[in-house]
């Protein structure tokens, strides 16, 4: 496999702010590669360096075989970049934006329309509407269309689903899966842990560092200790109980349930503990760790 993107010992600071630590990374051709982490993890800085938009970084970076600091012209011809903030022209119509982006790259809309038909067909009724007047989900579809219209070899999407509701998020990932099947290499960042499973490979990021890189399954399998799920109405009381017994960072809220990380404790042990404290109707069962569980563990209970 040819690496499309490689970073070795990449770091970057803005004045006195340390934005990226020592990043080592290799993205292969055709991979859908997710960068997952909260605000301030360094995702945007990393993407801007790969997209050749940030200079003066330290370390060795190659994108499609080119050096982003020196050969940015070559890189920019070959990538599609969708920044986190809406980047289109608000006072141009949907159609005009698309034509503009195609023209900038010396293309016309028709010859590459097959790449975006899937997405753009949904926008067709609004072709004459100004981009600034579109809803959030529609803006995002237009921005993706504009990033794709010159048939890039590498697509870079910075938090395309942030602030988007859960239904639109699912649809957006369906679109990405279909693009991936066409052979395109895609880098995508997100703060939503549940989106990780849609990627071939993920890098978990926090405070400018990559905590771990692997397939979603590989990351789940690296979880240390046993994970259990506890279902009961009185979650906060159980949380207090478990923390008292198993340590402050052992138990945390997880939607309808509580997750408990233990070493050498069985489901029975936990049921006994709860019963001893007057809770005899909790449902306790072992559980496979999700990416969010792994992320919490990798943060190591270390607070901000």
């Amino acid at each position, binding site marked *: 496999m040819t690496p499309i993107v490689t970073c070795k010992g990449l770091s970057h600071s803005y004045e006195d702010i340390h934005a990226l630590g020592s990043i080592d990374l290799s993205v292969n051709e055709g991979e859908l590669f997710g960068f997952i982490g909260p605000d301030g993890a360094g995702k945007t800085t990393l993407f801007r360096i790969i997209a050749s938009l940030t200079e003066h970084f330290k370390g060795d970076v190659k994108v499609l075989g080119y050096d982003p600091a020196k050969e940015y012209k070559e890189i920019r011809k070959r990538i599609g970049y969708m920044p986190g903030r809406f980047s289109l022209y608000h006072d141009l119509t949907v159609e005009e934006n698309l034509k503009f982006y195609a023209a900038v790259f010396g293309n016309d809309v028709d010859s590459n329309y097959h790449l975006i038909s899937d997405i753009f067909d949904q926008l067709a009724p609004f072709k004459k509407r100004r981009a600034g007047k579109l809803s959030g989900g529609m803006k995002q579809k237009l921005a993706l269309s504009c990033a794709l219209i010159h048939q890039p070899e590498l697509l870079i999407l910075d938090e395309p689903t942030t602030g988007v509701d*859960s239904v*639109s998020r699912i649809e957006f990932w369906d679109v990405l899966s279909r693009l991936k099947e066409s052979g395109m290499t895609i880098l995508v960042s997100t703060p939503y842990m549940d989106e990780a499973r849609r990627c071939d490979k993920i890098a978990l990021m926090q405070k400018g560092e990559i905590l771990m890189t692997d397939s979603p399954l590989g990351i789940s399998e690296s979880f240390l200790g046993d994970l259990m799920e506890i279902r009961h109405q009185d979650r*906060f009381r159980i949380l207090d109980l478990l923390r008292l017994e198993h340590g402050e960072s052992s138990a945390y*809220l997880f939607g*309808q349930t509580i997750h408990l990380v233990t070493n050498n404790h069985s489901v029975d042990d936990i049921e006994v503990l709860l019963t001893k404290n007057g809770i005899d109707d909790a449902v306790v069962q072992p559980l496979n760790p999700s990416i969010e569980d792994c992320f919490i563990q990798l943060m190591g209970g270390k*607070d901000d």
Partner: protein
Amino acid sequence: MIDAKPIIRVEKLVKKFGSFLANDNISFEVYPGEIFGFLGANGAGKTTAIRILSGLSRPTSGLVEVVGINARTNPEGIKKRIGYMSQKFSLYDDLTLYENIRFFGGIYGLRLREIQEQADLLIQKLGIEDLRNRKIGSVPLGWKQKLAFSVALLHKPSLVFLDEPTGGVDPLTRRQFWELIYDAAKQGVTIFVTTHYMDEAEYCDRLCILAEGQVKAIGSPEQIRKDFDSEDMDQVFYQISRGGEKA
């Protein structure tokens, strides 16, 4: 809760912008001490309703009463009595933590003496003496949001509005934030909260789900899941948003 008078009463709320119906006949009640989740896709009408509830915008028609005050006739009265924070607006980056506390305390009409006492209390409780004179801009986002929540409670409001308070925050801090919410609720503060994280919907006592400006579901998370025959809130949300969508 049965005898309690609602702290928020919304009856047949309508808000129009020109011909656009942002809130279409919304009714619900929130009771003291509840954690009330207000959910909906983008464009469902959440922000419009929150702006009316917090006295920033007037209803076109319908009755809206917040902490016993009518939102149409006395929106200013509401603003003084509630707390508010959001992902987009919390504390000022170029003021220090203590300056932020002084500023917001002043806005809410606390005396300097009270502000100093509250500041000491807050800083002591959170164990953050080293942050007192640091500019908020240099404080990590997770901490900033936790502090913003504490500052929104400075004037001891009985009701606080939290508009996507955990957006972009790491999973550990998100959970710590919800434990702060829970602590405040335990002390009797009513919490009105919006979120895009479906796991967080489960942490609420009751939920109200909007789509197309209308209330599509209301009740405890458990009840709503049952009503929609769904295993989790994602499925509920999917049904509601798709069912109601027009092209």
